[in-house]
């Protein structure tokens, strides 16, 4: 009897990607209904729309770089804010409201719950990034067409913007936000309040953006305690600026596929690592 019971529980609790996907889909539906998400979309689109004021300055063909820079920056800024808040709300929110207990009482592994919340966050973030990337491409296309008609001498070789690269930038950004989300979820597996988890999330975001400073300081350091401090600071966090090829695209420079491949591999490795550790830490958390 005992043996049969143990065998039955093994069959019920075999790890299932489908359960994680269902949790993710549900989390996605919950996320896109949040007022915060709608507000952020409107804010981001308004910020994009305001980039057309550059017309008033008569920068000529360089106006495209201004539009692209503000577009890429907006994607990065609003995307990161959305990722941190969503990751915490969708994961820790459910634990705080005790609805996670109901779900985990069912035959659902804790790792499936973590992965499902990650999937839900990333589905939402991906939709956000896709929408903003589309608006950016449209803005650049329209303005470039107008400038080509007004000042054809500045476009001797045709269009300057590589639109395929703009699309790839969006994809790379989703990977970057995936790393951020996985890291925030890792903090959330320990945090006892959403406020603390969000604060840690934003600090980690800023830390990741500034990681390159510690890395360069480590290379330049001669030794001692400062060397150890720089080494720890640069190894502990990922470098989020590795995903930022936006200024190359805005300058009309080609971005090699090798660079995309390296950044994508870096992002996938870090995401997988943080999620794996989250499975472990959440598995031992008392709810």
């Amino acid at each position, binding site marked *: 009897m005992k043996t049969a019971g143990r065998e039955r529980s093994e069959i019920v609790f075999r790890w299932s990607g489908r359960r994680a996907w269902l949790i993710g889909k549900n989390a996605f539906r919950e996320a896109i209904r949040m007022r915060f998400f709608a507000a952020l979309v409107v804010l981001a689109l308004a910020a994009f729309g305001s980039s057309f004021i550059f017309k008033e300055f008569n920068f000529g063909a*360089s106006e495209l*770089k201004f539009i692209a820079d*503000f577009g890429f920056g907006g994607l990065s800024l609003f995307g990161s804010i959305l990722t941190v808040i969503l990751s915490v709300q969708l994961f820790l929110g459910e634990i705080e409201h005790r609805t996670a207990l109901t779900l985990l009482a069912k035959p659902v592994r804790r790792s499936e719950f973590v992965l499902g919340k990650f999937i839900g966050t990333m589905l939402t973030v991906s939709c956000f990034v896709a929408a903003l990337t589309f608006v950016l491409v449209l803005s650049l296309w329209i303005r470039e067409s107008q400038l080509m008609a007004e000042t054809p001498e500045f476009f001797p070789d045709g269009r300057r913007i590589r639109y395929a690269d703009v699309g790839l930038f969006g994809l790379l950004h989703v990977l970057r936000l995936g790393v951020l989300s996985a890291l925030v979820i890792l903090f959330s597996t*320990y945090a006892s309040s959403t406020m603390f988890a969000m604060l840690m999330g934003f600090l980690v975001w800023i830390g990741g953006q*500034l990681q*390159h400073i510690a890395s360069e300081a480590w290379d330049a350091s001669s030794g001692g305690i400062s060397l150890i401090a720089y080494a720890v600071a640069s190894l502990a966090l990922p470098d989020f600026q590795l995903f930022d090829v936006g*200024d190359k695209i805005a300058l009309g420079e080609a971005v090699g596929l090798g660079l995309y491949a390296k950044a994508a591999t870096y992002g996938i490795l870090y995401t997988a690592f943080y999620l794996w*550790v989250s499975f472990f830490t959440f598995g031992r958390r008392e709810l």
Partner: protein
Amino acid sequence: MNSRRIQILVIVVLALVFGAVVRPLERSARAEIGREGTVGEMRSLSTARLSQGMSLALLGGYRPIVANMVWISMNNAWRKRDFDTTLAHIKLATSIDPRHEMFWLNGARIIANDMPAWRMGRENIDRLEGTIEGSLIKQEFGAQALALLREAVVRLPDRPRLWVEMGVIEWYKMGNLEGAAEMFLEASKMPDAPYFVGRIYAEILERLGRKREALSVLKEMLADLPAKDPMAMVPVVKDRIRRLEEELGRVGE
């Protein structure tokens, strides 16, 4: 030490080990993206004119946006004809984002063309045109613009338009045709130099009395000009070659 703290310690150690494992990939990608040495570059920036938020944005990877905002601020100072602020913002924008050719070019044009007019005043421009006082004012600002562009060609060595702009300033502001010829020669050596560079270089050589050189330059460039592209102005180049050959032929007689 309780188990939770041990867990956190283990995670930190794991993160450090993982960071060390991916570090070669990180360094390789950073080199390719052109981010090495950015901290060293930023040490030389005067961030005194930047707010704390902008300084953080600068270091946090939003450098192009900070440079753009400085440039827009410069634009406001330019409208008010504020010498010091305009000049300071031009230098700051080019320091923050030296890869943007437009900052260098338009900055030099503002210094060389607009600032002399501000100094003279609208009512005195016609009066001072052609006078020693007017020339000295143009040369003062022309020298500043040339200094800015000399810095630009070090940062962006493969941009013919920077050399062209230096040539124009040497010619029209400094009155230095020899200097202008050198600049246009440098520009003409670059593979993506506009078609007009060679024509203007030949024009300058003619004005300097170096007509045989001018003829040689025109013949050399004609061989590479696309006949069907109206921007190449092939008939104009052919006409100038014919005219120079006639002149030099008469001199030979």
